[in-house]
């Protein structure tokens, strides 16, 4: 098998604060090939965003990558110097953020912000960069693009700003695009447009896309493969289709059940996952989902489950996956794994 484009191995991130050490990411691994679309889903605070910031090397001062490697083009990105990493960010791996309203610099025209990327990475001269910026804006669907280069971010609507962010991100034809909740701050119609745009850009550019979201609908629409994340670990990975049709981890099942559906009776109450994400200041032994899980067995409390293949391409980290067990109550007597 050929080397994947980007290979993340056992990535581990810790935050060191004065009061406690927080463990937001506890060893995650995934591979990306050109054209791949990978969704990472999980609830707030499960470590989705932190992992993406970590592999971009922009964690900030309190966060530290404490283990693992991120192999991109035969280099471990985590071992690069600041300057080397800067030439990778935006050039090879680009990122789109959640809130387009605040992610653009308010005092610079968008033309300057886009040309800055082009001139930094591709050493374009002013004129060429300006032309390229106009082409980019046009590609992301901004009308009369060339005229709008001189405008400031506050003259654009949210959806338009997200398009500008996308234009900046794809400016240097990166190999990997990480989109961190790219549509969360937008309303539903705009959301669909932005997702369409991302999908077509990924196809045209042969990029690999990592889409981080808490919205299962978004994943279903865009991603081929999905990793479900809980408490800093992947608990289930596989094709999006497998995951949605045959969820194996009780957490995935819970997530799917808590999405409102039109084909359910109106009177039915929406199911929820009981409890809230665990305190991340310590690593506990056992499955971190056990306290909230109806399928938890003695084993779940004793030992942390690792990802194992349950069907071709479908892996789950659970001692008692959904398909092999009977839910709630009766699980204690079963004890099979």
């Amino acid at each position, binding site marked *: 098998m050929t080397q994947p484009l980007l290979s993340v191995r056992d990535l581990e991130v810790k935050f060191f604060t004065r009061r406690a050490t927080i463990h937001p990411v506890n060893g995650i691994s995934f591979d990306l090939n050109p054209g791949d679309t990978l969704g990472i889903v999980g609830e707030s605070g499960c470590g989705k965003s932190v992992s993406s*910031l970590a592999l*971009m090397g*922009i964690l*900030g*001062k309190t966060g530290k990558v404490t283990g693992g490697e991120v192999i991109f083009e035969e280099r471990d990105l985590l071992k690069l110097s*600041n*300057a080397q990493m*800067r*030439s*990778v*960010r*935006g*050039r090879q791996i*680009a*990122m789109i*953020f959640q*809130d387009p309203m*605040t*992610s*653009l*610099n*308010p*005092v*610079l*025209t968008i033309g300057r912000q886009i040309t*800055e*990327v082009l001139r*930094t*990475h591709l050493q374009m001269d002013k004129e060429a960069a300006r032309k390229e910026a106009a082409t980019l804006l046009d590609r992301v*669907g*901004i*009308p*009369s693009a060339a*005229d*709008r280069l*001189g*405008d*400031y971010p506050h*003259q*654009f*609507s949210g959806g*338009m700003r997200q398009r500008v*962010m996308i234009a*900046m*991100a794809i*400016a240097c034809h990166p190999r990997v695009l990480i989109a961190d909740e790219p549509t969360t701050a937008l309303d539903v119609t705009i959301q669909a447009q932005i997702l369409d745009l991302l999908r077509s850009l990924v196809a045209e550019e042969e990029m690999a896309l990592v889409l981080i979201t808490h919205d299962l609908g978004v994943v279903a629409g865009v991603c081929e493969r999905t990793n479900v994340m809980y408490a800093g670990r992947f608990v289930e990975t596989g094709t999006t289709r497998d995951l949605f049709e045959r969820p194996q981890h009780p957490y995935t099942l819970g997530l799917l059940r808590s999405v409102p559906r039109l084909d359910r009776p109106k009177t039915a109450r929406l199911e929820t996952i009981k409890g809230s994400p665990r305190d991340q200041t310590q690593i506990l032994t056992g499955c971190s989902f056990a306290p909230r899980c109806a399928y938890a067995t003695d084993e779940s409390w004793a030992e942390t489950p690792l990802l194992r293949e349950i069907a071709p391409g479908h892996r789950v980290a659970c001692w008692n996956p959904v398909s092999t067990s009977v839910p709630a109550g009766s699980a204690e007597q079963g004890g099979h794994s």
Partner: protein
Amino acid sequence: MSLAEAEAAVLRTDEPSGLWKDAFDRFKRNPAALVGALLILTFILIAVFAPVIATHDPHAQVGNLSANPEGPGDGHIMGLDKQGRDYFSRVVYGTRLSLLVGLVSVAVGLSLGVLLGSLAGYLGGWVDVVIMRFMDIMLSIPGLLLAIGIVAALGRGLVQIMVAVGIVNVPVFARLLRAAILGQMDSDYVLAGRSVGVGGWRLLGRHILPNSIAPVIVQATLAMATAIIDVAGLSFLGLGPANPSFPEWGKMLADSASRLEQGVHLVFFPGIAIVLSVLGLNLVGDGLREAIDPRLKT
């Protein structure tokens, strides 16, 4: 026409504007700020055209030496001083010195303050601690006292005074800028900037500084007013520019304060000049603060 195009068309109708243009518009609507700006403009014109405006050579003796100098009267709008020099011409030429002192000392304070403040705010860690504790030490000494100390160390002279008054202002600028930068460091656009490979000094210079500098600019206009007063104060205390014949408002006040009864005009005119210029700068500073501070946007 698609929705996006319609939206774009609507947005196009307002003229291209930015933070600074919006601020300027708000400034223009503030009458007090305009009065201040007018005052400053007048003083700038007086300073520039001093040779034209002055009726006499400020250094030449045109009347009699007298302990009771002539008051305002024919040929001398503001009368004469004790050396028989035309007082109006001296006040006019004094404008040059005061504005120069205001500008240069604020420039000194601003450049050092911006440098130290951005290093402290952007780099953080021990650099921040060392710089800011040093600034705290400077702030703990009263401004005029510190300036006197610096003049004493550097010796008397115009340049020394401007440097001294400038240095007194450094911690104020540094603290203000550091706080503003810290406020910007966690913004999304800084993170986004990093994510496209902008970093190091470029991130500071092009992205963070322009977003943090507004309060510092406001402070600079206010500091210019205090600088004029500080220099006048130093001159009053006898630490002014070395050449005693050089017209300087503070020095002119000091020379005549002890003989108020012999010539009120000797105190009145330079005093009024100081008051008006400082008032103008303060009005402009307040106007700028209101114009730039986004929280006060209406």
